[in-house]
């Protein structure tokens, strides 16, 4: 599988079809991997794929805008790649998708893997197996039934730990704004002081911004150094998008995101006085 991947990368680079190959390489630590950016055919041997390849590499795609790039994508990452193409952050002809048949990596998200199919990938490495796993929304439904004060208490406890390192934003494939509201000073939506209330506002606004675009890839939860349960929020948002607008992000590359379009006859979605 790795050999096949290296061959494809080598060929693409040698034929000058792409400027960069974004993949995984072994880290210093045994059994760990890190992202690697390859631009010489002879370096293609560095590429690996194993259980430690958790990162969502599509986050680097908006940064290679003018150049061509090939990206190694698992089934879940592929949804983010489609979303980035949909939002015109990279042109479809400028990206070569090398899909990897993934059977789960070292991540909590894999237990409820929704999609490991590789539809729309230019190359497929390995054979895709049906894992027979299902999306589990039971924790969301349980949480929704709590009272408002219980919910607030839960999030206060979570965001008390937040150190506002913005790792969740930086690893998010759809958080590519060069001028983020969190850094803006005029108007200052977010105080730069780190405290529970401000941390919560940061995440509320971030979640609102990625609504209907978030593919629930859980990169933010993986990156969080203090282990805030962000998957609850991302799951909730994909559930809402499905329930309210019958929309699934990352499914295709041409549908309109739910908040940038509307239907005249949808009075039923919400009660307005």
């Amino acid at each position: 599988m790795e050999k096949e991947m290296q061959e494809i990368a080598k060929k693409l680079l040698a034929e000058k079809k792409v400027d960069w190959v974004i993949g995984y390489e072994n880290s210093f630590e045994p059994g760990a991997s890190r992202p690697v950016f390859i631009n010489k055919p002879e370096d293609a041997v560095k590429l690996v794929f194993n259980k430690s390849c958790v990162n969502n590499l599509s986050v680097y795609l908006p940064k290679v805008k003018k150049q061509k790039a090939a990206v190694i994508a698992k089934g879940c990452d592929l949804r983010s790649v489609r979303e980035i193409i949909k939002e015109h952050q990279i042109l479809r002809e400028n990206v070569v998708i090398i899909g990897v048949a993934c059977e789960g990596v070292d991540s909590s998200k894999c237990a409820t893997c929704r999609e490991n199919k590789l539809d729309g990938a230019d190359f497929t490495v390995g054979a895709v197996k049906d894992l027979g796993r299902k999306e589990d929304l039971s924790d969301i439904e349980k949480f929704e039934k709590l009272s408002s004060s219980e919910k607030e208490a839960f999030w206060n406890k979570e965001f008390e730990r937040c150190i506002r390192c913005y790792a969740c934003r930086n690893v998010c494939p759809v958080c590519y704004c060069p001028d983020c509201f969190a850094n803006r000073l005029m108007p200052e939506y977010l105080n730069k002081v780190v405290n529970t209330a401000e941390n919560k506002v940061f995440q509320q606004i971030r979640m609102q911004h990625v609504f209907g675009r978030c593919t629930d890839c859980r990169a933010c939860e993986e990156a969080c150094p203090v282990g805030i349960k962000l998957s609850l929020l991302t799951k909730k948002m994909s559930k809402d998008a499905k329930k309210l607008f019958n929309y699934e992000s990352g499914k295709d590359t041409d549908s309109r995101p739910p908040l940038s379009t509307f239907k005249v006859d949808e009075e039923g979605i919400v009660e307005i006085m």
Partner: protein
Amino acid sequence: METKEKKLNIVGFLCNWCSYAGADMTGLGRNIYPANIKVIRIPCTGRMDPMMVIEAFHKGADGVLISGCHPGDCHYSEGNYYWRRRYAHLKELLDFFGIDKRRFHASWVSASEGKKFAEVVKKVVIETEEWKKSTLK
């Protein structure tokens, strides 16, 4: 010592073309409505950045009311349709964060519906009060 009950703070974002004029009409028609609402004029409900709602709650608003033109009557023809979608999801998301659904409201009030505006504000205040009482228990 006597404890003074704090007055509820409701922030109302009213669209310039319908609801703001509707609020004017309420006064013209001498309809009585609670004075808890602080009105902010916005060009259109389509201009409502959800960030402003989150900010309002963060800065201490007990309730938020967004009011605009009836569907199909928008001055900019489609702004309120966008708002309806945003409102639907924002209400869910804020509820998930622990901001009660009784605190966040939207309404369609046209420039001639002075009476309706008074009713809407009354309802918002009653629901927000209900929420406030439930937290004190």
